């Protein structure tokens, strides 16, 4: 290309840029708008589909839930949100009485007469829970209350008539809710804090029909102006109830939170901004380019491959000086974990009618666990900052046992080889196993690493067969139909209670439920049922620990690791971002420095 041509191209581009800049844009907007980013988009904003972190981000900012998590307290602590107080619980643990705040109004919307939002009542809470049991809604959150609330399951199977009463859900008056349970459910308040429990007015659902999924009508601090899979634009709900933030009550700790300047919101009532934009940017490079631009997104989560370009040190994570001047950084363990479970429906590795083969399968699983190199996995894919722990009770929950032996997550190649040899396994008779995941480069690398681990203990690499699926939905369908012998899984906790992880191995939850291992152990089930009705206590924690040990002893899963997330945000953002416990509850408190 000649110099003249080059000059012409440059001049043309500059002219376009100048012309374009005349049109104004987000950087010239006078409104105070915080621009967040997420690595995926929610599919629906209907609370009955609030299954992902991504949908929870928008739903929690636009809808109200009865309870919420304290902004800064870790471990996570519940606090009243729309409820006026924590629930009053009957001595038998079966009846919850929940007072609801007066004067809370839904946002103005065409769904209401004359477009004016009306006051939220206990009946709205009942309606919102009932929707999960209406088959027409295909709820993804029904499991939270399935077989728990008196009469609710029957209400759903007998026609889901919203004008009919459900015995276990009653409005004692316009602002008092009574929930009657079939058996004690100490996690109930937690379930009333997540996006599935967001409160929807019936008029809006009837007005918008299925399109309530793109047109939320809530009573939260923000309302949705537009939503598509590229971006959600929220504007402040100026009619949001005026409740001043008590930063100490939200768990503020000077030593931990001073750098975020969140003390600046103390005594003020959210929402603090004119709006929030949430940009859904799957591509990490594009996200980082936008983040560094300065006038686009103000938050990003660092990917492993970006670490060396941004961090001066990985452990502890510290930014390079050029980045440290412009951005704040926080790290935290995820509220969840990654694990690889064996599918017990496969007789070649799981349950087997032949006791001798069952014992050999047990030895095989245990050998594979011993051969798994968690350190290498952590270093290769998770900055080396993930926390490896034994069993399935992750470090983020209060029931985590720091004293538990680490033997089950320590590499022991010789021990694995000996186990295989003692059980009569040879390269010739080891079963062929399919390792499946979505067919991304990252996942294929994980597979290759896994195959390498297994080769070291004598498992022929050609017997670990890679099966890529085009989408996560396809992979999930295979899990749910119990078609795969190995299931590599991540589990995000719905609430900070080990029960949410331990239910993954409860046999009534087998496929298509959340027990993708299809593990079935009557002793484990009994303990689960015993603990599931107990309020938090040392006794319950002891049972949790016994269950965890059972899973370790039975070699049910190669587990686990809780990843450390590295979050970056611009220094003018006053926030303590957190995407855990289904994410997004911090958005209510975000402010920008003036």
């Amino acid at each position, binding site marked *: 290309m000649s110099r003249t041509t080059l000059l012409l191209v440059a001049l043309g*581009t*500059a002219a*376009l*840029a100048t*012309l*374009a*800049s*005349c*049109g*104004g*844009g*987000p950087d010239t907007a006078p409104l105070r708008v915080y621009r967040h980013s997420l690595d995926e*988009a929610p*599919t*629906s904003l*209907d609370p009955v589909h609030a*299954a992902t972190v991504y949908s929870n981000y928008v739903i929690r900012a636009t809808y109200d839930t009865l309870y919420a998590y304290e902004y800064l307290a870790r471990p996570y602590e519940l606090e009243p949100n729309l409820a006026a107080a924590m629930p009053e619980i009957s001595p038998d643990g079966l009846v919850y009485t929940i007072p609801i705040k007066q004067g809370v109004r839904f946002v103005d919307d065409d769904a209401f007469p004359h477009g004016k939002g009306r006051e939220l009542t206990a009946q709205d809470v009942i309606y919102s829970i009932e929707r999960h049991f209406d*088959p*027409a809604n*295909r*709820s*993804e*959150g*029904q*499991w939270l209350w*399935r077989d728990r609330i008196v009469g609710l399951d029957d209400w759903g199977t007998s026609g889901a008539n919203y004008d009919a009463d459900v015995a276990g859900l009653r409005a004692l008056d316009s602002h008092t809710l009574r929930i009657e349970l079939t058996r004690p459910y100490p996690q109930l308040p937690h379930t009333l804090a997540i996006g599935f429990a967001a409160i929807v007015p019936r008029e809006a659902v009837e007005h918008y*029909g*299925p*399109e*309530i*999924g*793109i047109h939320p009508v809530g009573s939260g601090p923000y309302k949705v102006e537009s939503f*598509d*899979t*590229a*971006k959600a634009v929220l504007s402040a709900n100026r009619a949001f109830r005026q409740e001043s933030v008590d930063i100490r009550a939200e768990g503020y700790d000077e030593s931990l939170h001073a750098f975020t300047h969140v003390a600046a919101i103390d005594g003020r009532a959210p929402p603090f901004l004119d709006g929030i934009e949430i*940009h859904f*940017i799957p*591509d990490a490079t*594009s996200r980082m*380019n*936008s983040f*560094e*631009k*300065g006038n*686009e997104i103000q938050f990003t989560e660092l990917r492993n491959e970006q670490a060396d370009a941004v961090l001066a040190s990985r452990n502890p994570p510290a930014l390079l000086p050029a980045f440290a001047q412009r951005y704040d950084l926080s790290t935290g363990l995820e509220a969840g974990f990654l694990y690889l479970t064996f599918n017990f429906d496969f007789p070649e590795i799981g349950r087997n009618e032949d006791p001798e083969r069952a014992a050999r399968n047990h030895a095989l699983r245990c050998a594979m666990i011993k051969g798994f190199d968690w350190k290498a996995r952590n270093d290769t894919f998770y900055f080396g900052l993930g926390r490896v722990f034994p069993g399935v009770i992750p470090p983020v929950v209060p029931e985590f046992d720091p004293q538990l032996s680490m033997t089950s997550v320590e590499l022991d190649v010789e021990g694995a080889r000996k186990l295989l040899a003692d059980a009569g396994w040879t390269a010739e008779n080891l079963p062929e196993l399919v390792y499946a995941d979505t067919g991304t480069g990252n996942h294929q690398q994980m597979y290759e690493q896994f195959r390498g681990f297994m080769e070291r203990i004598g498992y022929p690499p050609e017997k670990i067969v890679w099966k890529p699926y*085009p*989408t*996560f*939905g*396809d992979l*999930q*369908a295979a*899990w*749910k*139909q119990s078609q795969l012998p190995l299931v590599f899984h991540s589990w995000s906790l719905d609430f900070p209670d080990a029960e949410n992880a331990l239910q993954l191995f409860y046999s009534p*939850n087998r496929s*298509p*439920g*959340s027990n993708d291992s299809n593990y079935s152990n009557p002793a484990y089930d009994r303990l689960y049922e015993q603990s599931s009705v107990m309020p938090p206590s040392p006794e319950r924690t002891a049972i949790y620990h016994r269950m965890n040990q059972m899973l370790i002893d039975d070699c049910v899963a190669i587990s686990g690791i809780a990843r450390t997330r590295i979050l970056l945000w611009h220094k003018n953002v006053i926030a303590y971002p957190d995407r855990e416990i289904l994410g997004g509850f911090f958005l209510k408190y975000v402010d920008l420095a003036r």
Partner: protein
Amino acid sequence: MHYALRKLAGAVTLVLGVTFVSFLFMVWFAPDPTYKLLGKNPSAAQVEQTRELLCLDCPFPVRYLRYLGELSTFDFGNSWSSGERVSRLLARTMPVSLALLAPGFVLGNALGLLLAMVAAHWRGRWLDRLIMACAVAGMSVSFVIALIAFQVVFSSSYGLDLFPVRGWDVHDFGDYLRYVTVPTLATIFVTLGYNTRFYRAVLVEELGRDHVRTARAFGASTPEVFLRNVLPNAAIPIVTRLLFSIPLVVIGGSLLIESYFGIPGIGKATYEAIGAGDQPVLKAVVGLTPVLFVVALLLADLFSHALDPRVELR
């Protein structure tokens, strides 16, 4: 008119054939979407209810006839994922794709034609070789790499920093230019090689014909030869190519551009529908594509006849 009606009637068979095959592969043999739709902990009863609700257990003829009914009324119901009416989703996303891809499409073809004319005129000379070498080089660069490079060069804080990195926040013409320029440049860069090579081949063939040689022998200048003798005759393959590209632009959008730049067009919507097993959206896209192709086929025939009356409309 008689021809058009006859052609449209014949097109029904074509549409039925194409929709049958696409329905078979995109919907009937597609992975069961029930589990994706119900999340992580459905009960077996819930799975059954949902399959019944969405007619996923219905026999093939029932589902296919339903699909044809939807296609004939252009009413595909609501997206299974977001709940949005499919017609509204198409009306929202198709104009975005059109606005995004039209400048690159028009400029890419115009520039391609221009370069092809230059190359064809100097066929075998160094300029022809240079243009063709650049065309091949451009074709060899992956679209993804081109997108990343253009974004870094024109938009990022490490480059010229002239345009937004991504997004589509268009309220006026200035916004439009801000957001469309970099994707357009990337599109032109990637498609220019293909266009130039195609147009050059067409033009070289025309330049070798007897009437062109005769025109030159009578002293016609190069611009006259191109305008009077070459381009009118080359118009048929060129117009056909352009018309056949339009359905892809309108319905297909550009998955890569839209995904990478975060632009809510039809390509991104289709990709997400595939990932989510959102069959109402997929059925709409799969159904409308052959319909648009049939229209393009018809228009191509009519244009060909208009440009060269020797082309019969039978």
